[in-house]
């Protein structure tokens, strides 16, 4: 994504400090637009995911605007207000003030749970809806905040779906997988996932022989690879971010770890096409249970085209942000107003089923979309194929990894 400042922007900006901060109403009097916030970490250590998400939101807004905007509001155009959470919770919280003052009707965000917790809490004071793109930690929806809408699945659902699918795969292959090693980052989603796995895998007849947590960033995966190798696990279940995943995949290969499958859960790299491109060999047959769109929908195809035209890798961040803006737009259609309270009501009553995600009709219970679900992807050749659930699948799963 390219940001350019032209002279007009600078001129406008010189007065902006006084204007936007002190007198919010001036900017709202512009007529046929409705403002939607995008709160993402565009700088700091989460910048990659934040920037991807912001791009996804922009693609969605462009698409909706091109299709005539919000029809119930006389074709009002969606104007995105993008703010940088700087990968810091306190900045995320104070950015909500900026969004509120700019007059957004709802916002999407915020990549990491720590940022989402802070922002949604701050937004609650304004009755301002936050539609979570990514926010896997379960405590996000456990605080009873009426302005929290998590469209995508949390860690619990991701893990349980991953378990179900793993069971199907393993049964289909004649239960070849008997032992598992878990490698996860030590943050909320990794730790929680590992806990659930350790409890549930034995019920499927898979013994967890090794659980290794590691910090982010982590510089060397040789030991982890060696421990996985020594554990003689049939399957490796990793859950970590792209940088660590890349290093881990390489180390596994270098240490000649023989695995029947790599089955990651919310693995930052296994469904990242960049990883596939740069690590062709080690990426083959890796499976991931993650957020992913339904590639067959028209909007999905349009998104893929838009992303490729912008020279952007189509990661799940782009997809979910696109979808959350769709959700917000649908609620706007129904509320027909830029009133925040009405927006909350509209979201709470949402049954939207036209998003690019392979979800059923939206239904928020305590802010959690009960009809969301993760899907399974598998890396095949130079592509990421969707293998589960069957109705959206673009390819048949290969499990276990065929012997060379």
């Amino acid at each position: 994504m390219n940001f350019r400042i032209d002279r007009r922007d600078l001129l406008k900006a010189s007065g902006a400090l006084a204007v936007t901060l002190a007198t919010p109403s001036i900017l709202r009097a512009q007529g046929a637009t409705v403002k939607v916030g995008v709160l993402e970490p565009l700088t700091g250590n989460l910048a990659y995911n934040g920037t991807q998400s912001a791009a996804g939101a922009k693609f969605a807004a462009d698409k909706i605007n091109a299709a005539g905007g919000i029809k119930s509001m006389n074709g009002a155009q969606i104007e995105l207000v993008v703010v940088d959470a700087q990968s810091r919770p306190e900045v995320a919280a104070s950015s909500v003030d900026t969004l509120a003052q700019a007059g957004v009707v709802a916002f999407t965000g915020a990549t990491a749970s720590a940022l989402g917790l802070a922002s949604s809490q701050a937004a609650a004071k304004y009755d301002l809806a936050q539609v979570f793109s990514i926010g896997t930690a379960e405590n996000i929806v456990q605080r009873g905040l009426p302005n929290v809408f998590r469209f995508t699945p949390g860690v619990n659902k991701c893990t349980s779906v991953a378990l179900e699918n793993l069971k199907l795969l393993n049964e289909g292959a004649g239960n070849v997988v008997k032992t598992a090693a878990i490698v996860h980052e030590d943050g909320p989603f990794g730790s929680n996932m590992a806990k659930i796995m350790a409890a549930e895998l034995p019920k499927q007849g898979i013994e967890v022989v090794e659980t290794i947590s590691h910090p982010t960033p982590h510089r060397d995966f040789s030991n982890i690879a060696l421990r996985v190798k020594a554990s003689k696990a049939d399957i490796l279940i990793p859950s970590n971010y792209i940088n660590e995943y890349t290093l881990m995949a390489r180390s596994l290969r270098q240490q000649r770890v023989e695995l029947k499958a790599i089955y990651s859960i919310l693995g930052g790299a296994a469904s990242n096409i960049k990883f596939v491109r740069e690590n062709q060999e080690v990426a083959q047959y890796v499976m991931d249970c993650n957020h992913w769109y339904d590639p067959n929908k028209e909007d999905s195809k349009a998104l893929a085209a838009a992303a490729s035209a912008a020279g952007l890798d189509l990661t799940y961040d782009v997809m979910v942000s696109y979808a959350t803006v769709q959700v917000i737009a649908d609620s706007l259609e129904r509320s027909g107003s830029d009133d925040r309270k009405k927006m909350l009501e509209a979201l709470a009553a949402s049954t939207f089923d036209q998003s690019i995600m392979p979800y059923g009709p939206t239904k928020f219970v305590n802010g959690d979309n009960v009809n969301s679900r993760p899907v399974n992807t598998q890396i095949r050749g130079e592509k990421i194929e969707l293998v589960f659930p069957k109705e959206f699948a673009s390819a048949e799963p290969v499990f276990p990894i065929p012997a060379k």
Partner: protein
Amino acid sequence: MKLQSAGQIALVVAACAYLLSVYLMSSPVWIGFTINALIVAIIALSWNITGGFGGMSSFGHAALYGTGAYASAILQVQFGVNAWIAFGFGIIAGAAMGGFIGALAFRYGLKGSYFALVTLAFAEVLRICASSFAITGGGSGLQLRLDPGVGTLQFPDRTVFYTILLVVVALVMLLTLLIKKSRFGAYLVAIRENEDAARALGIDTYKIKVQAMVISGAFGGLAGALYLQLFLFIDSTVVYGSAVSIEALIGPIIGGAGTVWGPLIGTLGLHLLSEGAKHLLPNAPGLNFVLYAIVLICAVRLLPRGLMGLAALFGTFNSRKDDDHA
């Protein structure tokens, strides 16, 4: 308080006017932004005790801040302790951590960059520990249950929280002033200026330095515990990260280290600068930091004694050209 020049008085009046104007403007952006700045100002005032008055530059004040936040959070989340008591323990824990680091570092006479690096390392060890053990919530961090009320020290009305913060900052500054005007404060300055001469005058420099770390730790713990009550969530990077340590020292140095008003004025100034940079370059995330950093470099060059030192040059009461500190 004795301010030496009209320039300094103008600066202080401007800061106070700004802080009060937040009430009048009823702008949520201003109030949110100023609340963040005030919390940073407290950790800056904490750094000012050791770094400003005592001349012991720490690069790891996050160790104190994080300890205050974690102590309070652990007591509330893991043991169900009342928020007020936990808050108090946060301050005590910060003080204890300060004393511990000081006692170890000063016993072996660590000074200058050695001391700076030891404090940096302490903060880093604590960060790693906090993300590794169950009691601290590991990598997931700790979250307080959302439960507004006086009893839980959670104030959803930000004007109330802002007022509380203003009072706390005023109290910390008052304590700073009392320290500055006390035997202890004079001893600290004496140690900063010439440790041997201080020893010769009967000052137990080791004891004074450790005491300074304890006080600084209490202020740092206070800042951390306040952060917790405001955002209700902490994790190891948020409160033990190097960003906290940097913010703790950058404000006092720019504002005027070893002065009562410098840390507050420096912190407010830097936050305004950062906010201004964000608004000047709204569509270029990252470039605002570049602008901020360039201004920071210029400030370092142009303000050898910080804003308070610069202000001292304007409208001096007596014609003598003195190099006083406020």
